[in-house]
């Protein structure tokens, strides 16, 4: 099958049963997507398919062959962090950081649809992402900061 990850094309000979998460991690060494539950409940494995967040732990790799897959490793462009990555650092929106890649990708997709989301919109969009360290207030702030900054950039 052919996977397009972070704009790179990969030709892979893998069991079509395999979930995208493990193909990314074990075959392509893109370990930014994390295993947290394996049943679509925690969001640690979130990646973007054509810009929309999916749970790679329950998605067959074969099902997304040929589509644009974005992982956390592909978010920064030409060495420049995405505004939300910057904002996570600014808002200190992590403790152990294990949920961070999934949170950021879910947030990126929200910001794309809704550049300046309200707090309830952020909560709703990220409800499927668990931060066991409990940094939720800071993650909300980070998304708001990124929203405000992107507004400035586009103005």
């Amino acid at each position, binding site marked *: 099958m052919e996977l397009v990850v972070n704009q790179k094309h990969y030709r892979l000979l893998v069991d079509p049963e395999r979930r995208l998460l493990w193909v990314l991690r074990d075959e392509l060494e893109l370990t930014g997507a*994390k295993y947290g539950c*394996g*049943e679509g409940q925690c969001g640690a494995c979130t990646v973007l398919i054509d810009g929309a967040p999916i749970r790679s732990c329950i998605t067959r790799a074969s099902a997304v062959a040929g589509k644009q897959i974005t992982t956390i490793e592909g978010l920064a462009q030409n060495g420049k962090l995405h505004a939300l990555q910057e904002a*996570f650092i600014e808002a200190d929106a*992590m403790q152990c950081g294990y949920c961070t*890649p999934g949170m950021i990708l879910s947030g990126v997709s929200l910001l794309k649809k809704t550049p300046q989301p309200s707090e309830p919109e952020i909560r709703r969009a990220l409800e499927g992402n668990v931060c066991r360290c409990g940094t939720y207030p800071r993650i909300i702030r980070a998304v708001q900061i990124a929203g405000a900054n992107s507004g400035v950039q586009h103005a």
Partner: protein
Amino acid sequence: MPEIELERYELFETPAYSFEPEQSDVLEMQRREFFKFLGGGLVLLLALDTRATAQESGRGPAFRGDARPPELAAWLHIAEDGSITVYTGKTEVGQNIRTSLAQAVAEELRTPIQSIRLVMADTDLTPYDLGTFGSRTTPLMAPQMKKVGAAAREALIDLAAEKWKLDRSSITVAAGVVKNNVTGEAVGLGELTRGQKLLRTISGAEAGAGSGVTPAAEWKLEGTSAAKLNALDMVTGAHRYTPDLTRPGMLYGRVLRPPAFNAKLASFDSKEASAIPDVVIMRDGDFAGAVALDEVTLGKAIGAIKAEWKTEPQPSNKELFTYLKEHPVTQSIAGEVGPGQLPIHGDIEQGLQAAAHQLEATYTVAYIAHVPLEPRSAVAEWNNGKLTVWTGTQRPWGVQGELAAAFKIPEDRVRVIVPDTGSAYGGKHTGEAAVEAARLAKAAGKPVKLIWSREEEFTWAYFRPAGLIEIRSGVSSDGLITAWEFHNYNSGPSAIETPYDIVNRTTQFHATESPLRQGSYRGLAATANHFARESHMDDLAAAVAMDPLEFRLKNLKNERLRAVLEAAAQKFGWGNSKSESSHGFGLACGVEKGGYVATCAEISIVTPEFLGAEVTPGPPTVKIERVVTAFECGAIVNPEHLRNQIEGAIVMGIGGALFEAVEFSNGRILNSRLSKYRVPRFSDLPVIETVLVDRKDLSSAGAGETPIVGLAPAVGNAIFHATGTRFRSLPMTPRGFVQPL
């Protein structure tokens, strides 16, 4: 009281596995010379100075390995190129000590924090450490770091004095350079160490008074919100947690799990499984597992093993609390250090007779799971009889000991490396995954990575102890507590003693057998003991129709606790009237591990209709609207990271307060998935406000745990305020607002 009071559950497990040794495993390991290993420059060694640090780091009761001079607590190396590396056995699990310890060293070396690199938790490279738990890094390790940093600064001044033939008083260290105040000449820290192989050891006495350690009032870097040091790696996915590591030729492993705890492998047929190409199946006693090239093959291989297990009947959570009371442990558990039975003060019966109101109540807390988002995992590799294991644990040397014991090899043949880990909360004291990966790697003859599934994490780790607490008390009509009798069964003795001033009191901890494997958890039993105590305090206040704040202050002399209580109440607007009649206010306070906390909560009762049509009808639910927590832990090292920890503790506390509970029956966990075990999410998040009380005049205490203890009782008290219903079991509303029995 011993200087360090180890919680009974901090150290508790004997290694679970034992395997026969191989002849080739018995080799001698050489002790490395510091400079052979580090290159030239300046090395500062910190020898241990107190009994407290001896238990914490360096030679302690648990020390068995000999790979490093055992009497050292930390060391620091300034290389010729100016890079500064600090070696500590502590682990980073999200509590941000990589940053706070670097702050401590940078403060003393008068250098930017970015110039400090920390090598942490590697049994070959860093000094022995008992473990990262009990909120002890800040009170015990940070001061040692500061001593090393200060001594290094003084050593650099010596070098500069020699170089410039100048009096020390004309030399200053600031902004990462050493400056000649006469000529204005400045050199980098590394420049002075060029061509040197200078090794200095500071002893306890030198490290004590007059060591040049900067007092908190003069801090420039400490006390500020330095950003998390490796945040960039976290937001780009570059950081490699244990499950992200690979080794050349590495395979993937999985353990064959029994259907229940304490099961014995009765029969084992792996013919079919072994026939799958590129699969290794192994069995050693009751331990069996598979190794393969990928996770799908691994699943097929494990599924193809025909195994029968002998199981035995075991208790369920339905009879848990009667079980605890009926199964006392009379012999002290090995390693147990704790108050157990504290002395009786005054006369309880007399106190009760003098009371205008007598109360008696029973409280329970359920087993709960840590649910670290990074499940236990390990990468294990054997090389000429030496074993190296990467794993996320809070006790690298403890895991080294477990591995050595399981494989019957000397500890210096085992290296444990802990990458910064995807959280632990007290749940990663043991090394199951490490031992399992090592056993599979040995069978496969290749490095093996093993990542526990979420189900395994929910089942084969250990839990926060369940407990039963009974209180008998009396209060006079003017609101003085006249008697206090407190019994805790199993959940633990942390913060068991009341901080209130009560003449007639007794407090007892009763060890019992536990149907489930139990161990440390953020705040340990302090959560259970505070829940019972502070709920009961509210009932006493209600009995004499007093305001809960006023009632507490009336019975409390401790100034530090009064200060946070008043600070939280003020910020919260305690005493102001409720905005809505369905809302309720509650407060609670307490002290644990040198941290003083007070929490005020506002809750509302939400009826399903209220939420709209999409919600399936059911009982009303409790929504936590707002939480204000005031916290004091001495001099604050990093305000923003402290707020982050307090917020995190509150969010985590919501789960244990309202809905988290492990359900089990007959040796099986019934809710071993995230879809069945609810953890706090964005929708559970209240408005959280923190009040930091900074006491520059007091030494810093840890802060990762204690802020959790006030949440559950504050919420329970708020529910009582709103509804008149008292919930005495944690979790309080696992199935919504249902009247307790």
